Structure formats: structure tokens, C-alpha cells
């Protein structure tokens, strides 16, 4: 099918799709007139039931904790999938990354400027601390395991920018990253099963709730689940980054 015919067919199809979607969305309540009862119910009950002031995290890790477990497993499988798809094939060799690793790989990359190196070095520590703060404060303010994990992973990426690939490899060997990722995902699942063992529903909040709502040790399992999720997200993204960097810098074709 020629590209022109494909384009014409696409325009016909998408105009039909757009017509149907607009027809459907015209029946939704007007923008700004949210009617749904579930949101108001969660607002009224969440602080009393979970002692958490961050309602979005309470919904994520307690009221809909099972969905979050599923999404975390998607993340886990995607990271493992990247590691599997980008494994070294039979007709490839892994060169050793020396000090001139970027140039040895055949890429005409200019050497990293001193400004980039210094500012990346200066920012690595604060970004790591901010990511840790976000991971452990899910129940108080707009934070949570997912955001904190991504911020911490970008701190690890800053290490690669600030130095050589060898330094990045030394702080994130693949065995360690994969173990940490498994611990994060497994910890979340085991926490859910643990609540089953004591006789409560799956992922119910059985730990002591803590007195003032929104304190750092409040809301029982929510803070703990957020911590495990943060650990798993960091490990997954560092693993993905590591695989891609390895492909670009180290792996070379034998042909």
C-alpha cells in the first residue's frame, strides 16, 4: 500500500474516531462540575482511617493498593525486559571501557566540558537527598515512592555526567541493581501477604497508625509501601540506564 493511500485511509478512519469520541465526551459533566461521589467520600474518610494527610498517596497505597502492585510489576517486567533484549549477542563483543571510553567506541563525541562536570558533581548530593525526602514523606505532602524513585535515579545519572562511565559502573553493578529491584518489588508483595497472615484483607493497614495525622511515622503501611516502591523504581531506572549506556559505550559488533 503506497504511503499516499495509507494517509488517505488514516484520515478517513481518524475522522470517524474523532466524531465518536467528541460525541461521547459531550455527555460528560461540564469541565469543572465534578459530581462523582467517590472523591468526596475518600476526602471525608481518609484522614480518620489512615492518619495520612496526603490523600493521593492514601488512595494509591491503601484504597487502591492492589492496582499499584500491578503497576509496579509492570515496571519490574519492563526493566527485566530491557536487560534481556539488550543482552550481548553471539556476534558482539564487550570492549573494556578505558579512560578514553567515549572516543574508543567510534563515536565522535567531544569531551565533556568542565562546567557540566562541576555542576553535575555539585548537584548529585542535593538531588539524592531530595529524592529520599520525597520517598519517605508520601503521607504528608505531594510526594511518594514513584516520584522519589525517579528523582534518585536521575541523581545516579548525574554521576555518569560528572565523571566517566567506569565510575557509574562501579556504583551500580548489575547484580546489585537487580537484587535491590527484586527486594523492592518483593517487599511490597510480601507486605500485602503479611496482612493476610494476621487475618486482615490483602494490603490492609495493620501497623500502628501514629498519633498526629501526617507525621512522618504516621499511617502505618502507607509509608512502608512508599519506601519499597521508591527502592524498586530507583533500581529499575538505574538498570535501564545501565543497559543503554553499555550498548552505546561498551558493546561493539564483531563483524
Amino acid at each position, binding site marked *: 500500500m503506497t504511503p499516499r493511500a495509507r494517509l488517505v485511509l488514516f484520515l478517513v478512519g481518524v475522522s470517524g474516531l474523532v466524531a465518536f469520541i467528541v460525541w461521547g465526551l459531550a455527555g460528560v459533566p461540564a469541565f469543572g462540575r465534578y459530581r462523582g461521589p467517590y472523591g468526596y467520600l475518600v476526602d471525608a474518610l481518609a484522614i480518620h482511617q489512615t492518619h495520612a494527610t496526603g490523600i*493521593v498517596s492514601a488512595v494509591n497505597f491503601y484504597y487502591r493498593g492492589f492496582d499499584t502492585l500491578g503497576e509496579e510489576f509492570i515496571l519490574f517486567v519492563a526493566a527485566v525486559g530491557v536487560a534481556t533484549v539488550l543482552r550481548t549477542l553471539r556476534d558482539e563483543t564487550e570492549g573494556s571501557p578505558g579512560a578514553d571510553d567515549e572516543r574508543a567506541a567510534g563515536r565522535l563525541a567531544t569531551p565533556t566540558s568542565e562546567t557540566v562536570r562541576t555542576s553535575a558533581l555539585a548537584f548529585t548530593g542535593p538531588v539524592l537527598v531530595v529524592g529520599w525526602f520525597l520517598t519517605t514523606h508520601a503521607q504528608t505532602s*505531594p510526594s*511518594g515512592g514513584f516520584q522519589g524513585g*525517579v528523582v534518585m535515579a*536521575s541523581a545516579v545519572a548525574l554521576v555518569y555526567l560528572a565523571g566517566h562511565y567506569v565510575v557509574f559502573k562501579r556504583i551500580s553493578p548489575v547484580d546489585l541493581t537487580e537484587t535491590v529491584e527484586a527486594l523492592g518489588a518483593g517487599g511490597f508483595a510480601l507486605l500485602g501477604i503479611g496482612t493476610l497472615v494476621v487475618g486482615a484483607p490483602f494490603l490492609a493497614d495493620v501497623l500502628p497508625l501514629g498519633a498526629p495525622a501526617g507525621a512522618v511515622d504516621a499511617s502505618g503501611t502507607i509509608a512502608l509501601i512508599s519506601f519499597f516502591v521508591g527502592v524498586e523504581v530507583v533500581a529499575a531506572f538505574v538498570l535501564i540506564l545501565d543497559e543503554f549506556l553499555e550498548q552505546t559505550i561498551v558493546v561493539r559488533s564483531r563483524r
Partner: protein
Amino acid sequence: MTTLEVLVLVLVGAGAAVVVATRHPVRQVVLLSMYGAVLMVLFLVLQAPDVALSELSVGTVVLPLLLLLGLAKVGGSRT
């Protein structure tokens, strides 16, 4: 609907069209990073700071980094 909301929604629509219309992959990655920033502003205006934080860290830092690494391996100078 306030002017701010209308303005940011128009920017989002324009940003999406611009990102798709660019054919050179490396330029498209930079434009994607800016589109992520505009989306973050939309989420802030719609009172969702959590989602804005996620979109900022993922769409502005992690996704363009991974895409550029992939492009370095694949070669992005042609269409």
C-alpha cells in the same frame, strides 16, 4: 474557565502538533522535553502537584535521556 487554563490548554495542543511535525529525531527529543514542561504547567494549573512532579522528573529528564542514548546507538541523522 479562566484565561490561564485556556492559554495552557492551547499551548499543550500546539506543543503536541509541533512535536509530531518535527521529523529530525534529535530535535524532536528536545521539543519533547519542552512539551513535558508545558504539560507540567497544565497539571499545576489543574491542582495536581503530585502528577506535575512525576511529569517533570520523567518527561523532562529521564525520557529524553533514554531517547538520546537510543538515538546514539541507532543513528538519528536521517528523516
